[in-house]
């Protein structure tokens, strides 16, 4: 993409874009947990959708295209009553399956994670629900570069002021408890609008989500302040069973 646009934009802008991309890449390499935890959040659909069936399956189409295989299943354990809230439990899972297709004796990698969660919801008005819940995100990222050569990486390390040879092996696990709350309401056009905010107290990470849902698709964006990913647009799909 950089080459496609290079004829139409200034050299300074291209230089700035390249530096930003490299910086983001280094942020990802030095703090992969933060990045994959953000993807985890984007894939999930934690709100109380008005699905009348017992189960709902969700997929992130965008991350599937990027070979991050994922799915989420939600189960409506209790429909709710005048006193008791609705109870929904679920599990989401993601795996970068394309990493296993790289056949090289010098490189091996894997990345996957899953999150069980429980959401309580209460109808405030006919078109409005309030929900709150908790989840526990677990993920593991492993990258190993065999025969990492200090001499080859030395020049690039000097220009970036960062020792690339230290990236020969990355092994990182995250296990984080998170809480969230939000509202979802039904618009006159039949679409559902969801606003969600959540927090991981252990790592003090905030995540937010703004979403519009139709009968099959969800669109929106997530904002992860002070994170590698920053802003993530998403396009998800759900099926009620």
């Amino acid at each position, binding site marked *: 993409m950089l080459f496609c646009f290079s004829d139409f934009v200034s050299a300074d802008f291209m230089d700035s874009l390249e530096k930003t991309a490299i910086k983001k890449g280094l942020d990802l390499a030095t703090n992969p947990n933060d990045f994959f935890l953000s993807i985890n959040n984007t894939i999930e659909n934690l709100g109380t959708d008005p699905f009348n069936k017992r189960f709902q399956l969700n997929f992130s189409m965008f991350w599937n295209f990027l070979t991050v295989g994922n799915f989420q299943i939600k189960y409506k354990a209790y429909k709710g009553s005048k006193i008791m809230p609705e109870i929904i439990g679920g599990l989401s899972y993601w795996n970068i399956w394309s990493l296993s297709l790289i056949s090289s004796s010098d490189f091996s990698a894997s990345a996957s994670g899953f999150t069980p969660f429980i959401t309580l919801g209460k109808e405030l008005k006919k078109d409005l629900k309030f929900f709150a819940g908790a989840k526990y995100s677990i993920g593991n990222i492993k990258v190993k570069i065999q025969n990492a050569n200090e001499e080859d990486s030395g020049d690039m390390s000097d220009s970036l002021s960062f020792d690339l040879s230290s990236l020969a092996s990355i092994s990182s696990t995250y296990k984080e408890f998170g809480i969230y709350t939000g509202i979802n309401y039904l618009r006159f056009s039949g679409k559902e609008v969801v606003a969600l905010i959540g927090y991981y107290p252990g790592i003090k990470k905030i995540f937010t989500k*703004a979403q519009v849902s139709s009968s099959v698709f969800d669109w929106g964006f997530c904002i992860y302040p002070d994170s590698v990913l920053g802003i993530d647009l998403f396009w998800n799909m759900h099926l009620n069973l």
Partner: protein
Amino acid sequence: MKKLGLIIFIILFSQGMLFSQLYFNLGIEEGVILSSGEYYTINDITSDVAYMIPFNKNNSLMAYYQLKYNGPSVGDNADARFSERAQDHYFLLKYLLKVNNSLALKPSVSFFKEFYKFAKNEVWGEGLYDLNKYQFGIDIVSKGISTIPLTLIYKYQMFKYPNYHDLLTMYLTSFQDKKEIENYRNHLISLSISEASFSKPLFINFIYDLNLSSYDNKKILEATGYSGNDKQKGVNHSINLGPVYRASSTALALNFGLELNDSNQNYIFGYTSTDIQLYSDYYSYTSFNVKPSITFMLSKIDYLALLFGYINKQYKNRSPQDSNGVFLLDSNLKTQSLSAGLSYFIKLSDYFSLNPEYLYVKSDSNNKYQQSVNYNYDAHLITLKLNYEY
């Protein structure tokens, strides 16, 4: 214990008690500051959750929590001035007691926790200026004369900086003294009148705040360090008067503000222990501002506002510095800024609104030393705020 938990659970989730009194708000604001050919991204997220438990028509309890983030957005600003970020958690419990039709009492207790970082690579929770604020207070709300709703507030506040070490004293004493001395206490007394109507369509808003602060350990700064006989204290008066004129679909507002800050603290400047200069009464100032605005109600769901502002600040005994940092002792530091902007608000549904805003700010000062604080600049601020509220 189990029965108590069940009772609390039922109270919290039963229809007509919790959810009929629930408040939820999520505001996401993204913006960019353009100044001197550079751009800096900003991000502000605010979320509030509150619910009120009414025991009867005269007694109720409100629990409130706010989560707030303020800092750079995507791009991670390289300039240190725009790289700071803060994450705030605010918990409040307030009891509402309606004494009679014209008097209500609202005692409250709150805790505020701020995590503060200068840059992205720092770890949350280890910031030098992380803050814990404990607050106890009471609001007295009186209708008084029927057209003047009066509120008197008293708050006792304790500010504690758990990670702060006095870097100056450490430097002066060759790192022998590491006492945490930034903790202080504050008494806030506030008197306000809101939307008082003497002659419709004219309304008046008035607020007077008095802050009396005293430091727990910090003494007055002398040339040898914090060694004066008195501890640091401050008195701050703030007055805001805002008449508002509402006529059909237009509102004209004019806000006048005056602030008088008096502190007994001094300042020292120097690069080595032998060339230190002492500047007394360094933090006292007077500030005046005027902020007119015009709001046009375009329809039932949207409005456009023109915003203007002028702020003038003069220090009582602080000298400005030239571009090399040399103090100009024959004058006092002055700053002033002008601002003008547009704000458009549209309600897209009962609970969802959008608010784009543009503001231009020009600031100048007789202080030309820009290494720590930039007093001379002009900037364009463009923001877009998405808000969900119930």
